[in-house]
């Protein structure tokens, strides 16, 4: 119970931070790619390699959408906490939320990884795989998504066991 309570606090803070970051990401992106002529010089500073063209704005839009879906995935995780707190571990709702969040994490991870690789290729004109934290994170996200999907199936099996048990009693 203590672990779940701690998890609830952490996930609540994470969710708020994610929403805030998503908002900032979108506002800065729109200002940079759409209205930079109207802003004073140096109002928005970005990393040197980010060029202002159509392709980069497309990459940015795809990443913003993926980020939005990631927030939705975390929202699904957050929705499971009240059910876990009541001790109703094998409810269908929990399984559904785990499955949904697993699928979202897999797609977000794959999209982000692809955009990362394509943008590196676009900027450097060669297929250049930079081993950095982002690559690990995307791979980790895909694997964790697969795990959530897998264990939603295992929990369904556990639900069947519980129902059998109740029927026997």
């Amino acid at each position: 119970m203590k672990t779940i309570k701690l998890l609830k606090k952490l996930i609540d803070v994470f969710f708020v931070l994610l929403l805030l970051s998503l908002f900032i990401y979108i506002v800065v992106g729109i200002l940079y790619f759409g209205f930079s002529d109207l802003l004073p010089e140096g109002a928005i500073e970005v990393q040197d390699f980010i060029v202002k063209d159509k392709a980069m704005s497309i990459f940015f839009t795809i990443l913003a959408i993926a980020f939005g879906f990631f927030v939705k995935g975390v929202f699904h995780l957050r929705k499971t906490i009240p059910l876990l707190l009541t001790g109703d571990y094998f409810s269908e709702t929990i399984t559904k939320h785990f499955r949904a969040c697993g699928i979202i994490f897999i797609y977000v991870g794959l999209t982000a990884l692809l955009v990362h690789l394509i943008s590196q290729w676009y900027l450097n004109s060669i297929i250049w795989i930079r081993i950095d934290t982002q690559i690990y994170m995307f791979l980790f996200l895909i694997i964790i998504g697969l795990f959530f999907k897998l264990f939603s199936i295992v929990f369904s099996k556990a639900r069947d066991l519980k129902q059998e048990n109740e029927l026997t009693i």
Partner: protein
Amino acid sequence: MKSINEINSLKLIIKALFFVFCGSYLLLIIKNMFAIMENDLSYINECSSEDITSLIIVTIVIKLISKGLFFIGFYHLIKVLNFETLDGSFSIKKINLFKKSGRLILLSGVIGIFAISIDMLINVFNATFSTIEQNNDFLYSLYFSAIVGLFLIVFSKILERASELKKENELTI
């Protein structure tokens, strides 16, 4: 039958991805060794060779410990997948592996956050704000991995309960 097929294909994909993950970790180790041999930490995106201080080295060591713990935790998580039937996933061994991997990933997240916080403080004192943004992204990923670690601990508790139910069921039969 359908679910066991789905589980088997998911297990296969996870193991293949973990193999790629290990490959990138190996490259990271090579990169670190290169940085040590050349005595230039800029190879690992830490700092240029002129500003190496003992505090920076301590931070790098803590980060490496965090990465090592994360890798061990992740390896334990992959070991959970070694079950043939669905019932095999409720075994005590698997539950313990889940708990262990959850704790290690959580610990790695906490240690990583601690190292990044020190790093950020150093940057604030040195007024080098350019790296703070990079650290901020890293902080998010560590925070997320800490949450995943806690979820794995919760999963182990759910599986423990499922294992009890299975035993009760078998006794009734």
